[in-house]
Structures are given as C-alpha cells and as structure tokens.
C-alpha cells in the first residue's frame, strides 16, 4: 500500500493562489473554509528582508494529533496514510480543530453566501451547497483529503494539477524511486515545525 505525501518547492512557488482556488472549485467549500491556504512569511530585518509564500494544507501526519483527540472515531487514518473525517460519525466537538497545529481543519455552522448584504444564494452557490452537504456538511469537522476521489480515478489532487509553477509533487513516500522521494532526498525536504512530533507527510524544499 502506498503512503501518499506531497512535496512543495518553495523556490518555485510565487504565491499566485491557484492552488487555493482550485481546491475551492473542486471541493465547493463555503466562504470561510480554505482547505488549501497560502501564508506569507518574512525573514530578516529592514532593509535586508525577504518575503516568501507558503502553501499550507492538511499535512496528513503520520502521527496526527487530530486522530488522538477524536472521541467518536470520525477521524480515521487510511492504509494509504491519508487522514479523513467520516461526517456520519462526527459530533462536531471541534477538539480536532484545536488539536491541529497547522490549522488545517474547519467547521462551519451554516452555509453563508459569498455575496454581502444577505443576497440569496446564486445558482452556483446552490449547487456548491448541495455538494458540500453531501460530501462534508455543516456542523462537522472538515479538511483536505488529498482529493481522495480523484486519486481513486488515477488523477492527481486538484491543487497539484492547478499549480502553474509545478511547485507541487504528489506521490508515494514509501517508494524510494518515486519523484517525491527523490526530491526529498536530493534537496533535503523539510516538514513544518518538526518539534511538534506529528511527522507530517507534506514536505517543503527550502526557498533560498
């Protein structure tokens, strides 16, 4: 069984938000939900400063802290390492949201319009809301699942497909010859905040 993971090359990422939008379009997430996010970071002191984009998603940790705190068994780790939420088992306690140091989980009480001033839902929003209710839902914890449905069809996650800079590489971490394993080995891939001990499966190649 493969152990899926991702490498994000920060030298290539220029913070265009295509991954964020691709995730939104594919998963029809409500306005305040961003399974794929983009953070901006700074280094150095004025005038010698640098700015860097950091795409963030669920790290599908090997030792996920969200799994440890889930009281109902709704959070599960599949054999391929992907961490998912079974919406039919989630009671919406939000303990997993508090347990995730990467801020990857979201819960919304209700679907609110993308448009201001209480406008009725547009035709697209009605479609998206139905998709959301069928696949994730309000009141329960939700998160990125590496586009599991696309993987089952032999396709890549939407954020990987959408990356114009080819900064994202998806693959099997257990296969030493896979592109992702070679990249991590060759360019010394790092994980975010390794001191937390979650053993994330999303690696980053340092910017400069």
């Amino acid at each position, binding site marked *: 069984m493969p152990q899926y993971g991702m490498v994000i090359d*920060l030298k290539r990422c220029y913070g265009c938000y295509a991954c964020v939008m691709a995730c939104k379009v594919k998963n029809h997430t409500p306005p305040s939900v961003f399974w794929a996010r983009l953070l901006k970071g700074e280094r150095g002191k004025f005038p010698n400063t640098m700015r860097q984009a*950091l795409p*963030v998603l669920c790290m599908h940790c090997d030792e996920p802290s969200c799994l440890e705190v889930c009281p109902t068994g709704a959070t599960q780790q599949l054999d391929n390492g992907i961490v998912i939420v079974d919406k039919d088992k989630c*009671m919406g306690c*939000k*303990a997993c949201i*508090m347990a995730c*140091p990467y801020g990857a989980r979201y819960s919304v009480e209700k679907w609110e319009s993308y448009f201001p001033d209480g406008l009725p839902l547009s035709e697209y929003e009605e479609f998206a809301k139905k998709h959301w209710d069928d696949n994730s839902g309000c009141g329960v914890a939700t998160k990125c699942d590496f586009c599991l449905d696309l993987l089952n069809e032999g396709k890549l996650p939407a954020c990987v497909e959408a990356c114009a800079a080819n900064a994202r590489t998806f693959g099997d971490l257990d296969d030493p010859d896979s592109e992702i394993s070679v990249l991590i080995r060759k360019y010394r891939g*790092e994980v975010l905040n390794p001191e937390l001990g979650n053993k994330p499966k999303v690696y*980053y190649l340092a910017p400069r």
Partner: protein
Amino acid sequence: MDPKVNGQLQKDWGLLLAIYLFLGGVGGGAYTIAAINSFLGKSMELSTTIGLWIGFPALLIGSVILIADLGNPGKFILAGLKPGTSWIARGVWIISLFMVFSFLHLVLHQFTEISKTATGMNVIAILGIIFAILTMAYTGILLGTSKGIPFWRSGMVPVLFVVSALVTGHFSIMLGMVIFNEGAATVSQLSFMAVEAVVVVVVEVLAILFFLQAAYRQPDARESVERIMRKTIFIVGYFIMGLGVPLVLMLILRYAMTESGLSAVLGVAFIGALLGLIGGLLLRLAILITGALPTLNMAGFQFRRIARPKDLKPGIGLTPPQ
C-alpha cells in the same frame, strides 16, 4: 471570510464552552466541599446540603449546554462508546459517573433517613469526591491536550482549573447559604468558610501567576499571554473583581465583622461570593478567546498573522489608509 492564518486567535470555542467549563468546575468544586464538610458533622449541615444541591444540577445544566454547543448533537452518544480513545471520551464517562454518585448522595442525604455517617454513605461520598476531582481536572485536560493552541498546552491548566473549581464551588455554596440563611448558624458557618475561601483564593492567585509565567517562557504562547494581559475581562473582571475583591471581603468577613449584624455579614458574603463566581467564568472565557495557533517556521521565515493597518494606532507605525 478571511482564510485562517497561523498566529491568529481561535474562533471555534467560545462563550458556551466557557459556561460548560465553568459549570463543570462549580459542580465538581461544590460537591467536593459539600462531601468533605459532610464528614465534619452537624455543624456544617447547611453547607453540605447546599453543596449537594449545586453539584449534580450544575453538571446536568453544563452537560446540556455542551451538547447544545456541538455541531452535530445527535451523534453525542458515539463519544461514550470508545472510552479509551481520547480525553473527551474519557471525560464523558468521568462526568457521567460523577453525576451518578452526586445524584445518589443528594437523594440519600435529602430524602432518606440513612445516617450521614453510615458506611454506604461514606463510600458514595469518597467515590463522589474522586470523580468530582477528576471532573474538575478534566475541564483543564480538555484544553491541555489541544496541541494546536500552545497557550493551553501546559500542565498548569488542569491545576489552575481544579483550584478555580474549588474557589467557584466554595463561593457557590456561600451564595446559597446567604439565600437560604438560618440566622446565627449561617453566620458561624460563613465565618468558617471565609477562612477556607481565603486559602483557596490565595492558591489560585499563585496558580494563575505560575501558569502565565510558564506560558510566557514559550515563544509560541507568548502572544496569548500578552493578549490576555490586555483583556479587561481578565485583568479587571477576573483578577481584580473576581479574586482580589472577594479575597479582601472574605478577610473582612472573618476578622473584622465578628460583632456585626446578620444582614451586614450576609451582604458582604453575597457580594464576595457573586464576584468570585463571575470571576471564575471570566477566567475560562479569557483563556479560551486568547488561544492562538502556533507560528509556522521554515528556513528562517516565520509564517504568521501580520498586524494589519487597522490594528495599528495612527501615529505608531503605519497609518490606516484614508
């Protein structure tokens, strides 16, 4: 509509959870003090009765509020089916067993003629105290196991919550004694409980100082400490009005009102106890709303919330765009 940014405050746990944590603490604390007082005999009869009447109902109301706060309350029963998996699942059993023992103790104490010193009664009281302490600690452990909020990730949180639970439980009993007062007997019991209150309030002052100092030493939790120290509900509502003023009033009640009339004693006890209770709720609310996600680090970059122009005062740094 903004995406979540590391370094920003969590927004998923708020007032309802604070009320639940507060009522869990009040219930556990009031029961513990009532059960201990029951061993002291007839002289503490009123405080025992009131404490037992507070313990079970407070937990019951708190549990109802907690379930109502869930995103999917209908699935609540699933939490009790896997007691070994998580602290919430263990907490469901701890609170359930505490409610059973506190309810049994209340019924036997209030509605039967069983001797207060009977062996069975003592066994129930001891089991009740054990599960009451576990309930008080659990409210802190619930936060302490939240790896995503560095401010809460401290062994001091359960300690602080247990001490605060004893304080609020104590004050809830005092409030009940003022309301259901029995004249001179109440005054002598209030005087005794004022001494107990002084001890637990002093311990809570030390616990909160240790907690904040320990959190401030962690770089990721430092922002939360700075934020909580700027919160009026924490400094004024909790620390001054919820700890300081009750402490002074309890000292006055014990040492300066020995010759005072009944109404004056009841008035001071009422104000002190009410402020102490409100302070307990504000403490939990302040800790919840100042919990921030940790900063993410990569290659020397810090990825976190950056102060926006609207956060900065004009004249200091950036000026908001006109």
